[in-house]
């Protein structure tokens, strides 16, 4: 386990460094000179040369990657020359909105997905089971942007309830929550179906084990068998997937943020792409990628820790 932990952490480092290098070298492959994008095609050549020096565009690519990496580690993500502000400031302003959205969606996934699948699986082959299975698969195949657009049409446009645009402000928590409801649902629906199905499959698997059969033959109450033995064991693979889910939710957030004009990371990257504002694109992609990698790491570790068999092994090692 310790060896695994070290290997996993090393692997994460390698992936992040590769990611950052990839992002840093993005500039080199963009069609057109990034400087002329900012200064316009008829800029003073001396000014262009100066800007190129300031942005280290004339240095070898490895030097650029090194500079980008060492600056990024210190929290300096370059400066956005369209708005003349440090990129890290833009990122920090947008990040909370995206994280709140992803966490809210994750909570929804757990709060709706788990009961949906438990309700169906406790009543095997009933209508409840079939309906919950059918609902799950239909939700899985619903992309977040379709869910978002349909919710937009249904609530703000047709029924005139719930806000359609923006994220509200933190000084008005109720308003902020109102702005959060539709985006969070849109982002969550696909994963609700996915988690419900996954949990159902692993519950069915545990229901078939010999220890459940033994517990039944001992006359243990079905309720206790279900919640104490089956659900507890079945939840382990689901936890692993939830971490991956958090990363995917952050990725999917871009659609939902664009649809509901939420000023999060996704919107930031989207707008920057439209304006070919590459420092912001670089930083945004890097931050989203790093969050994704860490969510995966966290999931991997937590799921190993939740599994008592692994915990026992760890305890033995410590002694």
């Amino acid at each position: 386990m310790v060896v695994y932990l070290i290997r996993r952490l090393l692997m994460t480092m390698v992936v992040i460094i590769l990611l950052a290098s990839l992002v840093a070298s993005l500039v080199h492959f963009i069609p057109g000179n990034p400087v002329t994008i900012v200064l316009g095609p008829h800029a003073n050549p001396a000014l262009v040369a100066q800007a190129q020096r300031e942005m280290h565009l004339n240095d070898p690519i490895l030097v650029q990657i090194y500079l980008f990496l060492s600056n990024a580690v210190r929290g300096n993500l370059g400066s956005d020359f369209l708005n003349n502000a440090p990129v890290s400031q833009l990122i920090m302003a947008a990040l909370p909105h995206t994280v709140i959205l992803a966490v809210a969606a994750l909570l929804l996934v757990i709060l709706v997905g788990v009961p949906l699948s438990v309700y169906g699986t406790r009543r095997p082959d009933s209508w409840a089971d079939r309906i919950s299975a059918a609902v799950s698969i239909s939700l899985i195949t619903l992309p977040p942007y379709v869910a978002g657009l349909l919710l937009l049409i249904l609530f703000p446009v047709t029924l005139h309830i719930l806000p359609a645009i923006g994220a509200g402000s933190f000084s008005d928590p109720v308003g902020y929550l109102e702005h959060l409801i539709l985006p969070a649902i849109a982002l969550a629906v696909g994963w609700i179906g996915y988690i419900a199905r996954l949990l159902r499959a692993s519950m069915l698997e545990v229901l078939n084990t010999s220890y459940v059969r033994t517990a039944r033959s001992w006359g243990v109450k079905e309720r206790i068998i279900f919640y104490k033995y089956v659900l507890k064991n079945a939840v382990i693979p689901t936890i692993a997937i939830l971490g991956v889910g958090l990363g995917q939710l952050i990725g999917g957030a871009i659609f939902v943020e664009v649809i509901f004009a939420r000023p999060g990371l996704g919107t930031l990257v989207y707008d920057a792409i439209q304006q070919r504002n590459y420092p912001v694109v670089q930083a945004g992609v890097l931050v989203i990628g790093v969050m994704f990698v860490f969510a995966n790491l966290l999931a991997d570790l937590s799921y190993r820790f939740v599994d008592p068999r692994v915990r026992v092994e760890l305890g033995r090692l410590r002694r």
Partner: protein
Amino acid sequence: MSVAASSVDREAAVSPGRMQGVLSGLAALVRRPNGAFGVSVAVGMVVLAIFAPQIAPYNPDAQNIPAAFQGPGTTHLLGTDELGRDLLSRLIYGTRIELSVALPAVAIAVLCGLVLGLMAGYFGGLIDSVLVIIMDTVQAFPAVILALALLFLLGPSLGNVRIVIAIAFVPNYARVSRASVYATKQNLYIESERALGASHRRVVLVHLLPNIIAPLLILIAMDTPSAIVTEAGLSFLGLGVQPPTPSWGVLLSDGFTNVYTSPWEIIFASLALMVATLGLTMLGEALRDVLDPRLAGSRGSERS
């Protein structure tokens, strides 16, 4: 033992040239309700795509400004968009765009992933380690963000969307073929084949490849709908297929601009997308149940 036995079964079920096996497999597929639904959606999409000019009532690009923003009606069955173009015709031609992006993208991913995975699994060692790290890095991005960054580089166009989706999907195929080769390689008959003087090429093509076909087919069926969803999403953001080409994502984007005037474009494009992805996903699941019964419902058992 059981692995060897079941791989023989699988080979019998899908081995090329055995029409009988393919036909009986197809029959087993259609007998399942999800398989029947999936097959009909897939066949329906292919027919719509091929015969779009014969089926579509109007030219999908023909503008008729006075007739803009109509709801569903008798002249325009599903209504019209902001330029008075017939929505039904645009959706039908859209099927063509969706398939012409998704199928080549998946095909490129299969080809590249297969070659990389076979090499990594068969030769192992350094090639294997390097490949695993690269694949991990590619998968360290959410597919959407990876596609966005790449499209930022390449510029938005239909051809680039294909490439970008293919790149995002390559690791899936590299992984599956690598794992499968890795497992099969341990068998004694591979060793004896090598001892008899068979070339690496023969071992890979004759003995290893057939074992990968079943999991590969399942993955292809699962990835095709997600390729469609990815394409539509990128086009919705304006980074994929460009208007006026009637991709379903472009329709969603057009509808979004006019969401307060007329919701119909979004509603029908969403519906098309939902039916297509649901149908193709069900086809994938039915295919998995038929080809590899051990995998049925075992998504939750990925514990190792």
